[in-house]
């Protein structure tokens, strides 16, 4: 039973589950560090997934699909920026609205433009190609994890590492962190925090769009209504638990992805589907509880008060 859980294709499915959450969570983390509390990731992802299918179907090219997905994510990010940064709307309320718009718009356009409801599947949807790396491919176990994955798998890992280095080494990275941690200090340098936040939101839009593309045109090549199915929220939890730091985020999201793909395989043992579908949410809730409890204890210890 254990062996069947951890066969090589397990490694493959881990990455399939992980990449969308990882890309979205990285976008959320960048916003979080820049001081934008963005919980509209779910809405960003679903628009990205829809636009990817749309572009790939109409232009017969996966790269146009990827481009459209990014454009869709950026469109949502621009809406967020307009209503949160420029018009100073509350980020939580703007997020709730954008999640509704993301769900509504993708379903609406699915019926209005593609003329189907529920699922859109067509041979014309070109998928993102997988990349095979010659030597690594033949390694046992790790080979399947490190090679033959979709382009976005490699991109997401590199993006996380790049983001880590960028925050640590580059001046712009420092500014983007400062926008969240010490906005007035940043202003005194003559840099607008809002501009940094706008930049962070745009990057988040791109990343979430790609997350959507990974869902819809990477392995399957179809769009389903409400396809993101809570992954955006799991990404939000990953951001909160990791505090927006890229490397812990990477580890955490792989953990969630592992549980997610485990839940698929446990279905083979005859557990009811609903129990296995809960697992990713329970795992993220558990991680959140552990980290929150540690923070709470620290607060109690340092401040000596027990309110809320």
């Amino acid at each position, binding site marked *: 039973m254990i062996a069947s859980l951890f066969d090589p294709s397990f490694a493959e499915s881990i990455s399939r589950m992980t990449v969308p959450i990882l890309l979205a969570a990285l976008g959320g983390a960048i916003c979080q560090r820049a001081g934008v509390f963005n919980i509209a990731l779910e809405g960003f992802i679903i628009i990205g997934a829809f636009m990817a299918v749309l572009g790939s179907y109409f232009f017969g090219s996966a790269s146009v699909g990827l481009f459209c997905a990014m454009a869709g994510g950026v469109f949502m990010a621009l809406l967020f920026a307009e209503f949160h940064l420029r018009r100073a709307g509350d980020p939580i309320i703007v997020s*709730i*609205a954008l*999640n509704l718009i993301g769900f509504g*718009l993708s379903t609406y356009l699915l019926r209005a433009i593609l003329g189907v409801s529920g699922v859109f599947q067509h041979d014309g949807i070109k998928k993102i190609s997988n990349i095979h790396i010659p030597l690594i491919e033949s390694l046992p176990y790790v080979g399947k994890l490190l090679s033959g994955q979709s382009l976005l798998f490699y991109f997401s890992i590199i993006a996380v590492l790049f983001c880590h280095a960028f925050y640590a080494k580059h001046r712009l990275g420092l500014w983007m962190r400062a926008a969240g941690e010490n906005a007035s200090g940043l202003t005194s340098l003559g840099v607008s925090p809002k501009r940094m936040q706008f930049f962070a939101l745009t990057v988040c839009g791109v990343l979430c769009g790609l997350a959507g593309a990974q869902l819809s045109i990477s392995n399957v090549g179809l769009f389903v209504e409400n396809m993101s199915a809570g992954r955006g929220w799991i990404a939000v939890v990953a951001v909160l638990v990791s505090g927006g730091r890229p490397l812990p985020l990477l580890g955490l999201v792989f953990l969630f992805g592992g549980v997610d793909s485990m839940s698929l395989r446990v279905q083979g043992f005859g557990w*009811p589907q609903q129990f296995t579908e809960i697992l990713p949410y329970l795992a993220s809730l558990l991680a*959140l509880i552990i980290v*929150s409890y540690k923070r709470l204890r620290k607060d109690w210890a340092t401040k000596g008060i027990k309110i809320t």
Partner: protein
Amino acid sequence: MRKLSIKRISLHATGWLISFLWVGLASAVLLFLADADFINSLHAFFKSAFGGRKFAYLLSTISRAALIIGMAMSALIAFRGGFFNIGGEGQLVVGGLASATAALYFGIMGPLGIIVACLTGMAAGAVWAVLAGAMRIWLGVPILVGTLLLNYPARFIASYFVNHPLRDIASGMPQTHLIDKSMWLPLIPGTRLDTGFILILGAFVLVLIYCHRTVAGYQARMTGYSINFAAAAGLPIHQISLRTLAISGSIAGLVGAIAVLGLHHRFVDGMLVQPLYAWTGIVTALLVNLLPWAIVPAGLFFAALHSGAAGMERIADVPKEIAVILQGIIILFVASSKTADIRQNGPAKEKSE
């Protein structure tokens, strides 16, 4: 209360006008994308929101509005008490499932059965909300994410129960058996409108009294304004927090019970999630800036929007999700309008961590 001046009023009016123009523009673009006939769609919209033979559509709008207003009350109580409870969906589903179970298997019939089923649903909803509150108080989990994450287990648990132990296998659908007719909410004589909306109005009056006329409601609101101040004033803030959430959850549970007993007469998988009752309720409470009495007209407005959109789908082939999109756009404008300050009546700014 700030003084009204001609200048301020005209400022508001222009702001509203511009928002309306944007919403109108967005709907025109959406209709154009769906390749719909404008006049025909508008006609279909108003007919199925308010008209129909013997006003049948108007009655279904009212019935939908009752559920939305209920969920708006649930959100409003929590928001005013300082808790961004966006897990109304989970509380609604758990409440609906519990009341269906009570109605089917407790063996109590008639009016007493209705009361028992409603109370069971309310208790279940309250437990689900208090769970999030307990996680906030003793484990430090932010209420926003805590309530939201409990939506998914609620959805899957309900789905499991109607697919396996409680399933009406003969019907071939993921749903429970039909509830005994003696426990259906009676219809208003001569119409097809069930009395669920009267129950909701009753709850609404109680909520108004609670918000404006009771010490408990005042304490809850004070905790919402500033939890530190409430603690310093010696209020039992843990107890108040949990009470606020319990009330919020029990209203959501009541809405679930009404949907089961009055509308569907059984629990069908996804019947409370797909119409987005909980999210529409949250949006309704936000639309009126958490002003208790105003959720009734706002709830009717959004219910009419959804009913009208459903009609446009039937008649003019415009997907009904246009209602969800417009709802989101309206809330974007409300959240960002200079005149609205939801924080004024609602949750103190919760840090994201």
